[in-house]
């Protein structure tokens, strides 16, 4: 395992120097069919109604590809499992998997999402700690609702190097962010995914197609859209409300700041006047008081939340647009079908 990490870090430095479309050590993700099926199954069985289901991805890094060859789910956080040790569970699982020759190299984690709302502080923190420890790790976001509508929705994200820098320094003030020149679009980078199956699995696929009945539900061609749109827009509205509150906060802060500047200015002026008067009267000038102690500058609000909210809104908008474009196509098809009658 040590030699593998060494070679991967060597290749990553080589990648960083050559650059390319993605400035990161991982340019492509290769997932085995087994992992996809396991993630789907995990959500289906344990995820109904609850927030998210999570799990760990196992695999290895080959050149600039991250190969994910297996995964295992994490149990839900329940209240009556106070002494449940997550780390122990993980360790035991990985040890056991090593016995059966499954890759035990931790390369990332996966999470399910509800209508695309996954940009949160928790995700950021988890991904940061993962990426800090293992440079090539990714988070796979599985959207079960979109998948149920007809097409598998699995996306892989990594934090951009800029965001990593900021998280490391924990400097979330506006000045810090301006220095790093980071916008909500440069928080996460998406890595393209490719699904790969071994020959044996392909044989299995042929067998399954042979023996199973034809799918009777073609969800992808379903015309109904209002339900999904309503929910997405509801979430979008909530986020926009959050955003506006945040903006109000920032506005009050900047107003306070400018007011304080004015007050400082006035105070200095008065001081100078007084000193001039005293000098003319021959008295010693008043000592210069420490201004910064008198006028404490207001605390600048942290901008991280704003960034996250903006990123989330962006994500919602993207999803909504994709959905509407698909539906427009379907509507035109329906029109063509009707036109023949």
């Amino acid at each position, binding site marked *: 395992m040590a030699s593998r990490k060494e070679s991967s870090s060597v290749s990553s430095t080589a990648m960083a120097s050559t650059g390319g479309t993605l400035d990161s050590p991982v340019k492509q993700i290769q997932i085995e*069919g*087994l992992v*996809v*099926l*396991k993630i*789907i*199954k995990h*959500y*289906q*069985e344990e995820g109904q109604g609850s927030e998210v289901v999570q799990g760990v991805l196992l695999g290895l890094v080959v050149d600039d590809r991250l190969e994910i060859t*297996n995964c295992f*789910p994490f*149990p839900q956080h329940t209240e009556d499992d106070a002494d*449940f040790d997550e780390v122990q569970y993980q360790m*035991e699982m990985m040890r*056991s998997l090593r*016995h*059966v*020759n*499954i890759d035990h190299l931790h390369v990332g984690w996966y999470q399910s999402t509800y209508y695309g709302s996954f940009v949160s502080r928790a995700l950021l923190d988890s991904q940061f700690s993962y990426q800090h420890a293992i440079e090539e790790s990714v988070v796979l976001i599985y959207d079960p609702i979109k998948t*149920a509508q*007809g*097409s*598998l929705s*699995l996306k892989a994200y990594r934090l951009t190097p800029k965001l990593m820098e900021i998280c490391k320094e924990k400097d979330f003030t*506006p000045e810090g*962010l301006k220095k790093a*020149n980071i916008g909500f679009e440069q928080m996460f980078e998406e890595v393209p995914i*490719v*699904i*790969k*199956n071994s020959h*044996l*699995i392909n*044989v*299995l*696929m*042929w067998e*399954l197609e042979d*023996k199973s009945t034809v799918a009777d*539900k*073609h969800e*992808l*061609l379903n015309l109904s859209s209002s339900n999904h749109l309503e929910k997405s827009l509801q979430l979008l509205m909530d986020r926009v409300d959050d*955003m506006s509150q945040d903006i109000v906060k920032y506005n009050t802060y900047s107003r306070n700041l400018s007011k304080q500047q004015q007050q400082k200015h006035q105070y200095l002026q008065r001081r100078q006047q007084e000193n001039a008067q005293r000098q003319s009267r021959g008295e010693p000038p008043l000592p210069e008081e420490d201004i910064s102690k008198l006028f404490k500058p207001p605390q600048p609000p942290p901008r991280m939340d*704003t960034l996250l909210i903006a990123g989330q*809104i*962006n994500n*919602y908008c993207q999803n*909504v*647009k*994709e959905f*509407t474009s698909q539906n*427009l*196509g*379907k*509507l035109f*098809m329906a*029109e063509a079908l*009707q036109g023949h009658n």
Partner: protein
Amino acid sequence: MSVFGPVVKIHPVVLASICDSYERRNEGASRVIGTLLGTIDKHSIEVTNCFSVPHNESEDEVAVDMEFAKNMYELHKRVSPTEVIIGWYATGFDITEHSVLIHEYYSREASNPIHLTVDTALQSGKMNIRAYVSAQMGVPGKTVGVMFTPLSVKYVYYDTERIGVDLLQRTRVTPSRTKGLTSDLSQVGGAAARVQDMLTTVLAYIEDVLSGKVTADNSVGRFLMDLVNKVPTISPEDFENMLNSNINDLLMVTYLSNLTQVKIALSEKLVLL
């Protein structure tokens, strides 16, 4: 002891897992065994998960790491508490004597375990997937033997699983066995193409029946009738109205989301000034 009807429902996850553990077997091992987890219903057994168990097999003895199996089952139980041990699997075509021993061990864990064989070595040209239940046979009191009676196997999917499997099946055609995930309109196009294929098959069948090559089947005819009647007859104006209002909704939502994106980009630029 529960007696169930002879149907075993398997999820594709299980089979993919078995194939994967077969590919990763140790040097010299000719087959892999493992535990099957799932749920038992009154009439059927549903196999939803599995994990492989390390074992050693030689001519005259077999050793299974039972400690490992128990451990793994505990770990799995943490995640999905509803799954129970319902049997075990082995790759390979035949049932050997060692299988009997292993089966006996598993009957201590679960009542009436099922045994699944997956022929990963493709001995008969196809991957035979079979399930068995053991039954006692022989003369009571004297030589008692065990017979494995076959059960019928069905594949079941959750809806989302079905969609996942459909995607995976498309890796069969590319030579490098890889497939990227498509997005947007191309997916709708793909689905429409599939429906079109199905329609051409149906049309070919109808042509054959009309020209007398194939005898007409009444049930198929009824299905065809259903198919044609599925396209609803609505007056053109009503349909226009519905279509237009739907399109308007979608366009409005697209416009709003574009606007929102512009606004947040703008507000960000203002803050960072």
